[in-house]
C-alpha cells in the first residue's frame, strides 16, 4: 500500500465545524433566548405582559380615582371623561379598578406560582434525586392531594379560615396546586439522575447539593420554567373563578375576577358592556400572553418538541 499513514499531530488544535459566527460561544440559555425571540407569538406575549405590568405599576399615574372609593350617586354610570370606563354598581371607577385589579391579579398569579414553584422544586428534586422510600412517601402524598380536585380542596380549606386575605388566598392556592409541578420535576429528575453527566459529576465527588443545583436543575429548567409560566395563567383564571363563586379575594379589593362577577346579570351584560368587557378582556389577554410565552419557552428550551 502506498498511501501514507495520515496522523493528526497530537497536540495541534482540531478543526472545528464552521458554525455561523453568531452561534459560537453562546450558552444554551442564550440560544434558548434567541429561539424564543424568533417566536413571534411569544414576543407579542412578552410585550403584552410587560405593558400590563407597567400599567399596573403606573396605576396611580393613570388614574386619579381610588379603586375602592364608592361614589354613591355615581352608580353604574356610562363612560365619561371623568370615568373613562364608567362606574360599577358601587359607584367605583371601573378604569381605576381595572388598573389596580391588575396588580392583585398579577400578584396572585405570580406569587402563587412562586410558592408552588418552591414547594414543587424542593419536593420534586428530593423525590426524584434520592428516590427510594422518601420518593415513595412524597409521591403517595402527592397522589393524595391529587385525589381531590383543585377547586374542591381549595374551597374546603378556605371554608376553614375566616378571613381571606391575599396572602392567605395565595397560600391556600399554592398548598393545593403544587403536586403537578412536583410530579413534573420529579419526572425530569428521575430521568436525569441516570444520565451519564450526573454520574460523571458524582464520580468527581460533587456533593448532592451541587449535583442538584448545578447539574440537575439547569437541565430540568425547561419544563420547570414552562410549567411555572403556565401556572401563572392557571392561577389568574383560578382566582377569577373563585371570585365568581364568592370565595376569592373579597371586595372592595379589586381583582379582575371580582370585577367580572358584576356581569352576573343580564342587565349588565346587555347594557353595561364597560363593566364586564374590560376585565374579561384583560383576563383573556393576560392569560393568552402568558400562554404564548409559555409555549415560546417550551419551544425555546426544547426545540424538538412540536407542540405549539
Amino acid at each position, binding site marked *: 500500500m502506498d498511501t501514507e499513514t495520515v496522523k493528526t499531530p497530537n497536540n495541534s488544535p482540531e478543526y472545528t465545524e464552521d458554525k455561523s459566527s453568531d452561534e459560537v460561544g453562546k450558552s444554551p440559555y442564550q440560544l434558548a433566548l434567541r429561539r424564543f425571540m424568533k417566536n413571534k407569538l411569544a414576543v407579542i406575549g412578552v410585550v403584552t405582559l410587560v405593558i400590563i405590568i407597567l400599567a399596573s405599576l403606573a396605576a396611580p399615574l393613570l388614574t386619579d380615582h381610588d379603586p375602592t372609593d364608592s361614589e354613591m350617586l355615581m352608580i353604574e354610570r356610562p363612560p365619561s371623561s371623568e370615568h373613562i370606563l364608567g362606574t360599577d354598581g358601587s359607584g367605583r371607577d371601573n378604569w381605576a379598578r381595572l388598573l389596580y385589579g391588575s396588580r392583585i391579579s398579577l400578584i396572585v398569579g405570580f406569587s402563587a406560582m412562586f410558592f408552588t414553584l418552591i414547594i414543587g422544586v424542593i419536593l420534586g428534586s428530593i423525590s426524584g434525586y434520592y428516590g427510594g422510600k422518601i420518593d415513595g412517601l412524597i409521591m403517595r402524598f402527592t397522589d393524595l392531594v391529587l385525589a381531590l380536585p383543585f377547586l374542591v380542596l381549595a374551597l374546603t380549606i378556605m371554608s376553614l379560615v375566616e378571613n381571606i386575605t391575599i396572602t392567605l388566598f395565595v397560600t391556600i392556592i399554592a398548598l393545593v396546586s403544587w403536586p403537578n409541578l412536583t410530579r413534573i420535576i420529579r419526572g425530569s429528575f428521575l430521568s436525569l439522575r441516570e444520565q451519564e453527566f450526573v454520574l460523571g459529576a458524582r464520580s468527581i465527588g460533587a456533593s448532592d447539593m451541587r449535583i442538584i443545583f448545578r447539574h440537575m436543575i439547569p437541565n430540568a429548567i425547561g419544563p420547570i420554567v414552562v410549567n411555572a409560566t403556565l401556572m401563572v395563567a392557571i392561577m389568574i383564571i383560578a382566582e377569577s373563578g373563585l371570585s365568581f363563586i*364568592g370565595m376569592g379575594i*373579597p*371586595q*372592595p379589593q379589586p381583582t379582575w375576577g371580582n370585577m367580572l362577577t358584576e356581569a352576573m346579570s343580564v342587565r349588565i351584560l346587555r347594557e353595561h358592556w364597560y363593566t364586564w368587557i374590560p376585565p374579561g378582556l384583560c383576563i383573556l389577554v393576560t392569560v393568552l400572553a402568558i400562554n404564548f410565552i409559555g409555549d415560546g419557552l417550551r419551544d425555546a428550551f426544547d426545540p424538538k418538541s412540536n407542540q405549539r
Partner: protein
Amino acid sequence: ACNEEGGSDPGDEEEPAETEDPAEEEEPAEEEEPAEETSDEPVEGGELIGAMDTAPAGVFNPIFYSEAYEANILDFTHESLVGQNDNLEFIPELAHDWELNEDQTELTLYLEEGVTWHDGEEFTAEDVVFTYESIASPGYVEAGGIRTAFVTPLEGYAEFNAGETDTFAGVTAEDEYTVTFHFAEPNVNPLYYASYSIIPQHVFEGVAIGDMPTHAATLEPGEVIGTGPFAFTDMVEREQYVLTRHDDYWQGKPYLERITWQINDQSVISSLLENGEIDFVADPSGVPAADYEMVSGYDNVEIIEQTDFGYQLMGFKMNYRTTEDVESGTINPNNWVENPNVADQQVRQAIAYAIDRPGLVEGLLYGRGSVINAPIAQQFWAYTEDVPQYEHNQDTANQMLDDAGYVDADGDGWRDMPNGDEWVLDLAFPTGNQIRERSAPVIEENLEEVGINVNLMQPKEMTAYTEDIMTSDDEQEIDLYLIGWSLGSGDPDPSGLWSIEAAYNMSRWNNPESDELISQALQAPEAFDQEYRTEVYGEWQNLFATDLPAVLLYAQNKIYAFNERLNGVDPLPYAFANNPHLWWVSDAQ
C-alpha cells in the same frame, strides 16, 4: 337554626328571632275583591310559573321549615286559623269566629266546617291541638324545631315540654269544630298565637317528633298534606316545585290549574320575565332594584312595589360581653364591658347626622326604598315618624363631635378621643347582600368626611359574621356593624331584637328605660288597648332614636313583577301570595 340566608342573592335579608317571623305563612281570608282588577271575568284553568333564585332546602312542614324559599311553597299549601289583612289586623281563615275572655287568658275559636285536607280527610279541632302539641312536645327543639315561641305563653307548656304531663293543657278541643287556647297569663295579642299553620293529625299521628323532619309527609311531593288551595304534587328537586289545584278547596275551587315554582339564577330572572318564560317573581328577593327600570320597560310585565317588612341598620357595639359569658352562653348585662369608642350618645347622634341616608337610597337602591327612622316596620300601627330624624348634615355632625371633645388632637387629620387617644372605628359587615356590602364603603366615606377614622373590616360570610357579633362579641374589636332584619307581621313587639337580654340585641344596648317601656307595652290589662300600646311604642321609638344604639339606614322596597296575563294579584304588606285561589290567567283555554 336561625335562618340568615347568606347566599348570593342580593336583597335577601335575615329573619329575626322566631317571635317575629310566623306571619309569613298566614293567609288572611279576605273577602274583598282584588283591587286593581280588569272587568274581565275570571276564567278557570291555565298555569303559572313563578321564579325564585334559590332552591328550598326541602322541608315542607310548617312546624319545621326554616326559610323563605320553603315558605314560598307552604304559602300555597297550608293555612292557619286566622290570617291578616292589609292593615295587619287578624281576620278569619280556618276559624270563622272567635271569642276572648275578659282577662285575655282564653281564646276560643270556631272552625270552618267542611274543610278537607288535600287527601280528602276532614279538618277538625284535633288537627289544631295536634299541631300545637307537636310544637310543645319534648324533643321538638332537638329535632330542629324553632317555633317554640308560639307555645311558650300557653298554659302547661313547661310541664308538657319537660315530659311531666302527657297532655298539653295549652290548646284544647271543645268539640270537633271548637278549639280553645289557654294562656298562662293575660295575653296582649292572643290571636297572634293562634295564627300558626296547621298540620294534619291523621298524617303525622304516631310519628315521633324526632322523625317528623325526615318523614315523607314532610319531604315528598304528594305526601305533603295541607288544607291550602294548592297541593304540592311534584318536584324536580332544586329545579321545579309543582303545586296543583286542590279541587275541594273550602273557599271554592281555585281558578289556576297549576303553579310551578322554578329555580332560576338571579342573573337571568329578569330576562325570563321579559320573554314570558316565567310569570312572576316575588318573595323573597323580587326584582333587584337595579333592574327596576329595565323590567318596568317590559310591555308584558306589571310591577308592584311596596315597602319591605324590615330595615337595614348600622349598629353601635355599645357593650361587649366578657369571655366567660361568651363561653357559657350567658347574657348578663351586669358583666358587660363598655365600648368607649361609641359610648357617647352625642357621638352616636353625630354619626347619624353624618351618614347620607337619602343618598344611600337614591344611589345604592336606585331610589327604590325609603329612609326609616324607627325600629318597627313602617306598615305597623305602632310605627311613628315622630322621632328625631337626623337629616344628613355634616356641619351638625362636625359641631356635635367638636362639642363632645372628639377633635383632631395630634393633627393627623382624624378626630381623636377626648382624652387624646387615637379614635378608630372598626366597621364590620357581612357578605351576601350586595347592596349592604356596597353601603359599607359609602358609610366609611361619609364618616371620614367628618373626620372620623373608620376601618373597614374584612367582610365575612353571614354565618361567621353573626357568630362574631353575637356569640363572640368579647373580641372587643367591632365598633360598628351592618345588619338587616326582616320582621314578622304578627306583632310589633321589638323585644326579640332590642330588649337588653335578647341575643339579637347585637349592640348590647343596655338601657333599662327601654326594657321598661317594652314590657309596659305588653302589660295586661292596659295593653289590651291598642291605642295604649301605640303610645308606649311611640315613646320607646323616641327613646331608641335618641339613645341610638343603631342608626336605621333604610327599608328597601320589595319589587314584585308578574306577567300581565296573571290577574287577581293582591299582595299583603308582607307577602305576595295572598288568596292564590283567586288568581287567574287571561289566556287559559
